[in-house]
C-alpha cells in the first residue's frame, strides 16, 4: 500500500484551506498606479491622504505602497510606459530613479481628479489601472504568486479566514515527529480490513498527545462488509472513523464506571449497525483514556483517506483537535474546501467547533485514491 514512502518519497503536511480562504483567494480589485520621482514619495502620500481619506475604507496593508520601477511586475511596467508614450509622444524619457505607487482603488476617485491632484509632483502624470489582490495572503507561497502576477504583496503571518499560521506551524512541529508512525498503523488496519474482507482498504488511528508524549488510544479499519450483505453499498455506520470514535467512547465509559461505580450502562452488542469492538490484531489498543477526557476533545485522528461528509462531521461533533489524512477523496471527502464538494467541515464559522486539518502529501499520491474507488465514501 505504501509504495510511495517505500520509494523514499518525503511526505509533508499541507494545511487545508478553509472555505473562506478558497472563496476569497482570487478576489482582485482595480487600482490606479502612478510613476513618480523617488524624492516625491512623501508628497505623493500626503496628496493621496487628502484626496482619498483612509484609502476609501479599503485595507491595502498587504500591498507594497511604493515599488521601485525595476521591481514592479513586467506587465505593470509595460502599462506605465505605454501610458507615458501616449501622454508624451516621442523618445523614451523616463528618469532613472522612479517609483510606482498605488494611488487608490478606481472606485474611490475619478481619473481626472487624481491627475489634477498629482500634477504638482509629476508632469506629465502617467496613471494606469492594474489589478491587485483585495485581501491579505495567507501563506508565503500565495504572497509570492501574487507578487509576480499582480503586485508586490506582503505575507504578515496572519490569516483572517482560518487558524492562525503560528498555531498551525507549532502543531506541525509536534505532528512531524511521528506522523509516519501513525500513518503506518492506520495503513496496517486498512490492509487487514481489506485482506480479511471485512472492509475497504481504509484505516484510522486516534492519538492523544500530552506533555509532548503521544500514544494511540484507538485503531480501526473499515468494517462495512463485516456481517453485511455485499448486495448493498456496505454498512455506513462501520466506517473506520466512526468505529474508532466508538472505541474511545468505550474507554471513557469504562473509566467512568471505575470512577463512579456506574455499571448500569448497557450498550447493545455489535449485531445491528455498530461495529464498535476491536476485531483485528492491529486494532487491539487499550491505552487508558485520560482522566479528564470528554468525547474526543483535543485528540488527533490520522486517516488513510479523507473522511466522507458523515465521518468529517463526526470528527467535528467529537471535538477532535487535529486531523491528518493521507489521500484526498475529491468527490466524497468532507474536509477539503477545494474538492468537488467544497464543504471544508474542519473550519466553518457556523459550526460550534473548529479544528486543524492537514493533507499528508507525498506529492505523488494526490491523484490516486490507492486501493479504493474514487467515488467511495471513506
Amino acid at each position: 500500500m505504501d509504495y510511495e514512502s517505500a520509494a523514499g518519497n518525503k511526505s509533508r503536511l499541507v494545511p487545508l484551506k478553509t472555505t473562506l480562504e478558497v472563496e476569497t483567494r482570487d478576489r482582485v480589485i482595480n487600482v490606479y498606479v502612478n510613476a513618480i520621482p523617488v524624492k516625491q514619495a512623501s508628497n505623493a502620500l500626503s496628496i493621496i491622504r487628502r484626496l482619498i481619506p483612509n484609502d476609501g475604507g479599503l485595507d491595502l496593508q498587504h500591498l507594497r505602497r511604493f515599488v521601485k520601477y525595476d521591481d514592479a511586475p513586467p506587465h505593470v511596467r509595460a502599462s506605465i510606459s505605454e501610458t507615458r508614450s501616449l501622454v508624451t509622444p516621442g523618445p523614451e524619457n523616463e528618469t532613472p530613479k522612479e517609483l510606482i505607487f498605488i494611488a487608490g482603488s478606481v472606485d474611490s476617485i475619478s481619473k481626472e481628479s487624481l491627475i489634477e491632484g498629482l500634477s504638482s509632483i509629476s508632469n506629465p502624470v502617467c496613471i494606469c489601472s492594474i489589478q491587485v489582490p483585495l485581501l491579505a495572503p495567507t501563506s508565503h507561497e500565495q504572497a509570492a504568486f501574487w507578487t509576480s502576477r499582480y503586485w508586490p504583496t506582503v505575507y504578515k503571518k496572519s490569516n483572517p479566514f482560518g487558524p492562525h499560521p503560528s498555531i498551525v506551524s507549532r502543531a506541525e512541529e509536534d505532528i512531524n515527529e511521528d506522523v509516519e508512525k501513525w500513518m503506518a498503523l492506520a495503513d496496517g488496519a486498512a490492509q487487514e480490513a481489506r485482506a480479511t474482507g471485512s472492509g475497504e482498504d481504509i484505516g484510522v488511528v486516534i492519538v492523544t498527545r500530552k506533555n509532548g508524549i503521544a500514544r494511540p488510544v484507538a485503531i480501526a479499519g473499515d468494517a462495512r462488509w463485516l456481517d453485511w450483505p455485499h448486495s448493498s453499498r456496505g454498512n455506513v455506520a462501520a466506517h473506520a472513523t466512526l468505529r474508532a470514535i466508538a472505541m474511545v467512547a468505550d474507554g471513557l465509559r469504562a473509566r467512568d464506571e471505575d470512577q463512579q461505580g456506574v455499571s448500569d450502562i448497557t450498550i447493545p452488542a455489535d449485531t445491528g449497525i455498530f461495529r464498535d469492538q476491536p476485531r483485528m490484531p492491529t486494532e487491539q489498543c487499550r491505552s487508558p483514556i485520560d482522566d479528564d477526557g470528554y468525547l474526543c476533545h483535543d485528540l488527533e485522528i490520522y486517516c488513510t483517506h479523507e473522511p466522507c461528509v458523515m465521518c468529517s462531521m463526526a470528527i467535528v461533533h467529537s471535538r477532535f483537535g487535529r486531523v491528518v489524512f493521507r489521500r484526498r477523496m475529491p468527490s466524497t471527502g468532507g474536509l477539503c474546501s477545494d474538492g468537488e464538494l467544497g464543504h471544508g467541515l474542519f473550519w466553518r464559522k457556523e459550526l460550534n467547533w473548529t479544528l486543524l486539518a492537514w493533507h499528508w502529501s507525498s506529492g505523488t499520491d494526490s491523484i490516486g485514491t490507492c486501493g479504493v474507488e474514487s467515488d467511495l465514501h471513506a
Partner: protein
Amino acid sequence: MGDDSPLTSKSPPPPSTPPPVSIPKSASQCMTPSEISTHVQFMREALSMADLALQTSETPVGCVFVHRGRIIGRGMNATNRTRNGTRHAEFLALDEIMRARDGKKPRYAPETLRECDLYVTVEPCIMCASLLRQVGIRKVFFGAANEKFGGTGGVLSIHVGNGRKAGDGVEGVEVEGGEEWERWHRDDYEVSGGWLREEAIVLLRRFYVQENDRAPEPRSKKDRVLKLEVEPMGEEGKMGDGSAS
C-alpha cells in the same frame, strides 16, 4: 417531569376544537387531511422518543423510521449515556432496524431503507444527513430547523447533490438525468420541515432549563425561566439549539 411544569398548568383547549398543530405551509396546500394526519401521527411518535431522551438527560431529539405505513425503528439521542458524540437518534433507530431478527435471520435487508421515510423532531445534522443519503432514505420529515448543524438546509443541503454548490460552470454540462447529473443526484431525498415544530422546540427548551438546574453553579435566574412562546414560523421551522440531531 414534575407537576409544576408550566406545560401542565396551561388549560387544555375546549374539546370541540382540535388542538392547534403546526404543519408546513406547503403541506396544507398540497396534501389531503388524511395524509396530513398520518404525518402528524408519526411525528408524535418521534416526539415521544424525544421526550424519553429528556427523561434520561439526553438532548431531546427523537425519530422513527416508517416502512410501508409501519414504524420499523425508533431512536433517541444518546450522546451522554454512550460518551459518544455521534450517537444521534437516527443512528440508534437504524441500529434497532438492522438488529431485528426473525429467528436467526435479519428481518430487514439494507435495501429496505430505500423504501423508508424518516420522521425526526429536529432537522438532521450534517453527519446524519450524510448517513441518510448513504443508506438511501426516501424522504425526511422534520420538526424544528437546525441552524447550527443542519444538513438538510440549515447549514448545508446534503440531501441535494451531497451539498455540492451548483454553478462554477459545471451545471451547464450536467443535463438532468445525464450520467454526470445521475452521479451526483441518484441518492437525493425529499425533505419537509416544520412538522410539530413548536412541540420539538418546547422539549429542547425544557432540556436546557433542566441541565442548568443540574449544573453545580446554576446560571442566573433569568436564564432558567422556561420560555414557552415560540417565534412564528418562517418558511420552515427554525430552531437554533438542536445540536444533537
